[in-house]
């Protein structure tokens, strides 16, 4: 965790992931760029079909090569991953970059013990013996807070509770001390108290090992808890980027505004309707023209000349902060001022 290290550990540039399906080409990710430093956490927020999960499967090279076209560059520690040979990627996966998934029960093999599944990664990448791998698995289970790891190591996933399974997944992902960890909605299926445990665990482990984390979620509350930087995705594109404080405290894109204001809070007013975002997420088979959010955006009409429907807004990033929207800064300030005023009434 050196702050002097100015080289991003992971650098994604103009990533485009397109699937060909029977109905046409799905533009799941359409021009996405971001950097991630060692030891930092990037939170990616988005709803279903925003391209957030596809992005991360593509970083690992787990997309189906037959039906997917990937353009752009994915550089991990200076090494280009897009188009890298399968052998190279296999060597990196689970070793230098690892992933944990949302549904731990489905994501763990039902036919093998937890210990075997953790140990197998260690044996593959570190050339360890069966005995060493088992010892390492016990050590990892202890590290992620599973009681009696010596006996639990021989259990099958279905014998674990939901929270313990997610801990086991984390142990499996971290067994080779990866430098990049991608967590795809790791707490969404969990109860809040368990979610809190798992997030504390991830933060502890990050402090200890200096892992860079990409944390994918739809829950801005989780983002507030864990992320350093935030990337908001909509319809396969990044609509807003910035530090956690910037994005949550002074959001700049109407979609982010919508996400924040549509959620009830534990201390907000109760007898007023919520402010939902109208409509539904876009189809990536046939995405809206111009700004992909414009059909649902309450501010599209404030922009002159129907620009939102015609012209795709450019994401300009200065000092890691930016948003892709045609609204002017004045219009934004005006909205936020109105909002603050409304809250005081």
């Amino acid at each position, binding site marked *: 965790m050196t702050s002097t290290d100015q080289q991003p550990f992971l650098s994604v540039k103009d990533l485009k992931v397109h699937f060909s399906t029977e109905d046409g080409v799905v533009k799941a990710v359409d021009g996405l760029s971001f950097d991630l430093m060692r030891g930092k956490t990037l939170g990616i927020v988005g709803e279903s079909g925003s391209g957030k999960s596809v992005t991360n499967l593509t970083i690992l090279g*787990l997309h189906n090569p037959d039906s997917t076209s990937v353009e752009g560059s994915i550089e991990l520690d200076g090494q280009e991953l897009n188009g890298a040979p399968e052998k190279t990627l*296999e060597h990196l996966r689970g070793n230098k970059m690892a992933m944990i998934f949302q*549904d731990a029960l489905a994501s763990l093999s039902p036919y093998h013990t937890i210990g075997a599944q953790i140990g197998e990664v260690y044996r593959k990448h570190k050339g360890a013996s069966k005995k060493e791998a088992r010892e390492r698995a016990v050590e990892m289970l202890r590290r992620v807070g599973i009681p009696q790891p010596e006996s639990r190591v021989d259990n099958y996933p279905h014998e674990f509770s939901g929270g313990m399974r997610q801990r086991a997944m984390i142990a499996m992902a971290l067994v080779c001390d990866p430098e990049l960890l991608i967590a795809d909605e790791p707490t969404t299926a969990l109860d809040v108290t368990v979610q809190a445990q798992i997030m504390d665990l991830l933060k502890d482990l990050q402090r200890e090992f200096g892992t860079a984390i990409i944390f994918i979620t739809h829950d801005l509350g989780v983002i507030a808890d864990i992320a350093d930087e935030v990337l908001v995705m909509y319809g396969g594109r990044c609509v807003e980027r910035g530090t956690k404080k910037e994005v949550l405290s002074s959001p700049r894109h109407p979609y982010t505004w919508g996400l924040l204001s549509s959620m009830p809070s534990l201390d907000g007013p109760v007898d007023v309707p919520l402010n939902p975002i109208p409509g539904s997420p876009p189809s990536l088979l046939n995405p809206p023209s111009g700004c992909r959010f414009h059909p649902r955006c309450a501010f599209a009409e404030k922009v002159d000349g129907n620009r939102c429907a015609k012209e795709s807004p450019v994401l300009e990033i200065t000092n890691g902060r930016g948003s892709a929207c045609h609204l002017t800064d004045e219009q934004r300030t005006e909205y936020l001022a109105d909002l603050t005023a409304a809250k005081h009434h």
Partner: protein
Amino acid sequence: MFRFLVRRVLGAVITLFIISAITFMLFYAVPRDPARMACGKLCTPETLQLIRHNMGIDEALPVQYWHWITGIFLGREYPGFGHCNAPCLGYSFVNREPVLSTIADRFPTTVSLALGSAVVFLIFGIGAGMLAAVKQGKALDKIASSASLIASSMQIYFVGPLALYFLVYQFHILDQPSYNGFLDDPLSWANGLLVPWLVLALIWTANYTRMTRSQLVETLTEDYVRTARAKGMSRRNVFFRFAWRGAMAPIITIFGIDLGTLLGGAMITEYTFSLQGIGLLSVKSVQTNDLPMLLGIMVITSSFVVIANIVVDAIYGLIDPRIRLA
């Protein structure tokens, strides 16, 4: 496992009792009198009564059934034949031979047919299915899939005579089907059954190809397969370590059922290749109203079906740790 086996074997015994009882009842529901048929043209009531007595069908139905059951466990006295040692399945109404030895005579043919063809169709079916799954969507997959569709719509009585004609009579590539004891001469045993094995396998292979392919394709989309790939496992490794196991369980279940069917006697196959197996024997017994023979065949073949099912369930439990056998 022990509890599972005890429970299942007990259940199986009860099932067999029920099957035999039903067979017993159904037999008497048929409006034909075996004694009358055995009695011939010059039949006096006295002779008829004597024949009835000798056949053991002059008593009430439950009593007859009781005699039959006790005969299996303790043996029984037959008026016309003397003592029949346990396990006694009685004597044929038709040729007065002991049922057990007749079945024992025929059964090896059926078992050899079933197991031999099973080995062939499992190897080819699962192999082709795996290949098709690996090469999903590619030419090889399409060839395997269409070939299996064609093969599965074939029928024994069509393929059998064709095979006989070309492989045996016309070009003399293989031997005429016949049954030779395995223990006497394994080579001629295999030689004699090769044609029926191949024909049976051709038809059954197709099912297993399609099933293996679809199971594997489905398993390959499972989240845990994706996880394995995210851990750095190679495609090949994932395939053999994870996907295969997930696909196996349903295939074994179906195989258990199929094996039961095959052991029950493949009548048409036996008929086509003139092999004296259980299938033909049961057809003949139905035609001649031969109750003891029918009951014997019923009990023996259903035992095999039931045992095959228990074995399948046990294997299932070994493959999938989520299934607790109790």
